[in-house]
């Protein structure tokens, strides 16, 4: 079995587990929905409709959700020591990172779509460039997942894991968050060039961190 096949197998296993017990997805959807509502209320109806504010509220919600989903995913692995079985398999270490990233991207795509629609609905957002907004959202999710899985793996079996994952992830995610927020705001406001520029930057971040993760994480397990 090739490395991509092993990664897809891990991703499928992860998604089947999530479908059987969708506690990570349910928690993330509930959390992001509540966060968007709270942020909209806190900013007030007028400000929450501004492209910059709506984009920032959306991406902060999605980032927190990504950490929730990833944490739940690794909790599941640790509950029955399933991760030891995966790591013991030939090529398991290499596949674990990529598989987890693929699964997180799929779950985050659902979360981002639902949260985005909720955000547009409750704030009556005017979307000037729908296709560009979808593009920014897709590449934004692609840029978030590699970092969050990487950090979750580094914090595996470490004390206070729930606290250390966001502490490590947020500083690394600052450039991605700025790019995703700016790109989404540009798409909402009708600036196609800026939306495409920020999307390209997000693709670069996604590639860099995915490459680092694939290269380094197998060595992180003794």
């Amino acid at each position, binding site marked *: 079995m090739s490395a991509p096949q092993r990664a897809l197998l891990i991703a499928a296993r992860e998604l089947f587990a999530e479908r059987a017990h969708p506690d990570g997805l349910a928690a993330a959807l509930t959390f992001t929905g509540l966060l968007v509502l709270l942020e909209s209320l806190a900013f007030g109806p007028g400000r929450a409709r501004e492209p910059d504010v709506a984009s920032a509220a959306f991406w902060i919600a999605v980032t927190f959700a990504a950490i929730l989903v990833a944490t739940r995913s690794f909790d599941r692995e640790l509950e029955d020591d399933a991760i030891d079985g995966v790591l013991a398999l030939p090529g398991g270490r290499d596949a674990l990172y990529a598989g987890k990233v693929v699964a997180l991207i799929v779950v985050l795509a659902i979360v981002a779509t639902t949260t985005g629609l909720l955000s547009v609905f409750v704030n009556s957002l005017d979307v000037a460039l729908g296709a560009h907004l979808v593009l920014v959202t897709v590449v934004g999710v692609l840029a978030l997942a590699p970092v969050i899985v990487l950090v979750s793996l*580094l914090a595996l079996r*470490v*004390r206070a894991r729930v606290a250390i994952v966001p502490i490590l992830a947020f500083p690394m995610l600052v450039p991605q968050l700025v790019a995703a927020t700016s790109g989404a705001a540009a798409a909402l406001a009708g600036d196609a060039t800026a939306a495409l520029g920020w999307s390209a930057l997000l693709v670069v971040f996604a590639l860099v961190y995915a490459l680092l993760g694939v290269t380094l994480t197998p060595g992180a397990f003794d």
Partner: protein
Amino acid sequence: MIETTAAPFPTLRLRPWLGIVAAASAAIATWMALVWAPTDAVQGDVYRVIYVHVPAAWLAYLAFFIVFLASVGWLWTRRPWFDALAVSSAEVGVLFTGVFIVAGSIWAKPTWGVWWTWDPRLVTTTVMFAMYLGYLLLRSLSTDFTRRATRAAVLGVIAVVDIPIVHLSVLWMNSLHQLPTVARIGAGPALDASMGMTLGISVVAFTLVYFALLIERMDIERRRQAALLG
């Protein structure tokens, strides 16, 4: 297999001398910065903060680059010496990054009118500071030596990706921050010769202080490793 013999690092023999030389050079640099260097025609005496700010910035970059090299060394060889170097350099690097940010803020208030602004370089430097605080926190929360060293080494390699972003952010984005004054592409230093010499001496003095602190901290870490690994 972990090498458990805490063989002394050759540089440790220089320890007493390095501390004395570092203290003497720091005293000379302080005198030059406060007395010998002329007052700036535009900024007045407040510009003297650069004699702390710039060397601290250089050492923040150097310290984290050494963390990166030591992390690669650990991942490659699994020698505890590299782990001791990484954690020591990270701690000293965090210290100098803190000095770098605080000194910059002290300079910014009279010059820009604010203690803090969302300038890209300030933000990315603070992000770098937060990343290495996270690095130290990750280490402190792991009890198993090998796991701690390996995870920290992976993080030490990843975090270094942030350093070029910090350095180049002032050029990539529209920034309030002053453009490079000494290392300018295609031009000579835009700095008076005596100011440049003072800055050079300050950089050398701070670098010696960094190595003195690094070696002291490494000695502590090697003792801890010896106690832990037997």
